[in-house]
């Protein structure tokens, strides 16, 4: 029954997976470019963000068409509402990667004042959480969706570590404030990525159970 509708739902899930992959790569690439101080690579990330936005709009449009033509109810309706929401979250995550690219370009010729501390670790963790969250959504894996947000605490811990290390440097040398704040902004963007991953997991729980509730309140 409803083969056309099922095909449309599967198509949308595939598109969401592709968008997730794209955004995940953007995070990795943006931090990699920052680490290497490679402005061209950052420009490539910024350019690719257009592709992220286009895909997000395409998903949104297809969801609306499916709602209008198939009149989904119950689980189907929750699934489609969640796809709409998650596509938006992915687009925002893409913006954080783009933001990291912009920071790198704005820094110009300045050298990194300090090693990147735990930032590459944060980036990898965020990218992996994102991939797992999208997989959990597509597979409607309730257990995974409940576990992934716990890792957000680890990202927060890493962020605090970076923050305090940088703060100590500021105290030592006031002239370094600008250069230190570049790095802090990168870490902040990554911390926000993990928060949005938590939002994605909330949508998985909603899709499966019909319950809308916030997993934790660090997303302000």
């Amino acid at each position, binding site marked *: 029954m*409803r083969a056309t509708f099922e095909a449309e739902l599967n198509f949308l899930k595939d598109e969401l997976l592709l968008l997730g992959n794209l955004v995940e790569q953007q995070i990795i690439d943006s931090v990699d470019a920052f680490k290497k101080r490679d402005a061209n690579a950052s420009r490539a990330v910024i350019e690719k963000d257009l592709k992220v936005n286009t895909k997000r709009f395409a998903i949104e449009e297809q969801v609306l068409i499916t709602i209008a033509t198939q009149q989904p109810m119950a689980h189907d309706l929750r699934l489609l509402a969640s796809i709409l929401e998650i596509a938006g979250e992915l687009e925002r995550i893409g913006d954080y990667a783009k933001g990291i690219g912009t920071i790198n370009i704005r820094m110009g010729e300045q050298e990194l004042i300090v090693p990147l501390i735990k930032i590459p670790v944060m980036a990898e963790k965020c990218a992996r959480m994102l991939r797992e969250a999208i997989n959990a959504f597509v597979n409607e894996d309730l257990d995974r969706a409940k576990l992934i947000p716990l890792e957000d605490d680890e990202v927060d811990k890493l962020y605090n570590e970076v923050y305090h290390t940088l703060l100590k440097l500021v105290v030592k040398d006031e002239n370094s404030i600008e250069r230190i704040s570049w790095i802090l902004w990168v870490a902040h963007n990554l911390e926000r990525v993990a928060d949005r991953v938590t939002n994605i997991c909330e949508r998985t729980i909603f899709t499966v159970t019909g319950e809308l509730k916030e997993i934790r309140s660090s997303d302000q």
Partner: protein
Amino acid sequence: MFENDTIIETRHLNIYYGDFKAVTDVELKIPAKRITAIIGPSGCGKSTLLRAFNRMNELIPGSHIDGEIIFEGKNLYDRDVDPVEVRYRIGMVFQRPNPFPKSIYENVAWAARIHGYKGSLDELVESTLKKAALWDEVKDILKQSALSLSGGQQQRLCVARALAIQPEVILMDEPASALDPIATLKIEELMQSLKENYTIVIVTHNMQQAARASDYTAMMMLTDGTRSGTVIEFDETNKIFTRPRDKRTEDYVTGRFG
């Protein structure tokens, strides 16, 4: 279960046509001044249940019930209850508009007159047609035959005819299935305005209609291994269509039944 007052309550209701048990063990509380939709696949006993609420099934030879249907504290099937009186208080609108082949005016006035209405018939006809959202369209043609109206107008006239005898409950058996989308929406809007004063129970095959127009939804289905239907889930319409509890309801409202 709900904060509303119950106007009709069924207790262990079974409905039979001769030896055939069409509806099994329905326990349902219809909230007063709300719209309750009964949905479910064909042949699951929706119309049979609806017709039991005003003893219309009795017109079919061999039909009978056991259990009780309590309306305002009294079992509608008690020996001392007059089925005609029941049908005055619990009116019905059918699938196909069926106005009498008389004038528009007479369609509304007739039942009230039979019922011994003592007030001004002109006033009754006007106020009733206004309630049925038909007055503006027919006020200048009241003496014309009801059969000259469009299908949607005829159906609203049938609602007016049911209202003229001042019932408390209006049963609607697929009232819009023979109407186009505009006329359907007019009936649905009419239901919303009527629920301020009346309780409405509607049987519909159109799930979007149940979702749009009702406050509560009863999901009916054949019980396992039989040809007898029962209510498997009753809840607020919002819940039935976004997160039903029963897997069978989920399968039905998402179009995966069967």
